[in-house]
């Protein structure tokens, strides 16, 4: 039941670079698209989220770009830092809060 497809599986960027993670969804009933950050041994923590009525949302160094017609959305991390090294999950949720996650992207930011 892979309703949300995420790529790449892993990503290595240099400190100060831009990290880009992409996701695609299938179910048009999804109306809420969050990104979660997970460190080893911890539960996922909400990073940033978007609804389909906007095409972009920015919070600090994190930006979500959303393409409703293509059913795709992406996370951009500007000025990536070693502390950003974690696993990132995109997700999509319907109005009843039934949330489906992507498989995750392991980001490594090299100093």
């Amino acid at each position, binding site marked *: *039941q892979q309703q*949300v497809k*995420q790529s790449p599986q892993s990503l290595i960027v240099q400190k100060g670079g831009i990290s880009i993670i992409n996701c695609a969804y299938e179910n048009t009933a999804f109306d*809420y698209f*969050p990104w*979660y950050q997970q460190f080893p*041994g*911890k*539960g*996922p*923590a*909400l990073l940033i*989220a978007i609804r389909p009525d906007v095409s972009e949302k920015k919070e600090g160094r994190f930006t979500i770009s959303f393409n409703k017609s293509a059913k795709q959305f992406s996370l951009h991390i500007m000025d990536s830092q070693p502390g950003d090294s974690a696993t990132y*999950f995109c*997700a999509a*949720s319907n*109005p*009843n*809060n*039934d*949330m*489906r*996650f*992507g*498989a*995750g992207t392991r980001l490594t930011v090299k100093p």
Partner: protein
Amino acid sequence: DAGVTQSPTHLIKTRGQQVTLRCSPKSGHDTVSWYQQALGQGPQFIFQYYEEEERQRGNFPDRFSGHQFPNYSSELNVNALLLGDSALYLCASSPLRGAQETQYFGPGTRLLVL
């Protein structure tokens, strides 16, 4: 203000046994969702509880059942454990059904089935 808490943190069981995992939602939250996260995978939605009833269910067999108590805490029960049930089990709470913006996750219970 305590966030979402889960117990136990780790658990080892053998095939065929039964297990109960517990979750206390964040203060002010009344909706609890359970997820299974296999190693290297994203969380998979098991079910959601609201007003002490199962409201939604993902693609999991009936061996997975749950309960929500009047204080909004919740239990996940898994019967007839299989090796493939080994995973991190995550609980998430939100302030009210449909409040997608504020789903908080607990640290999880890591279950190993031998």
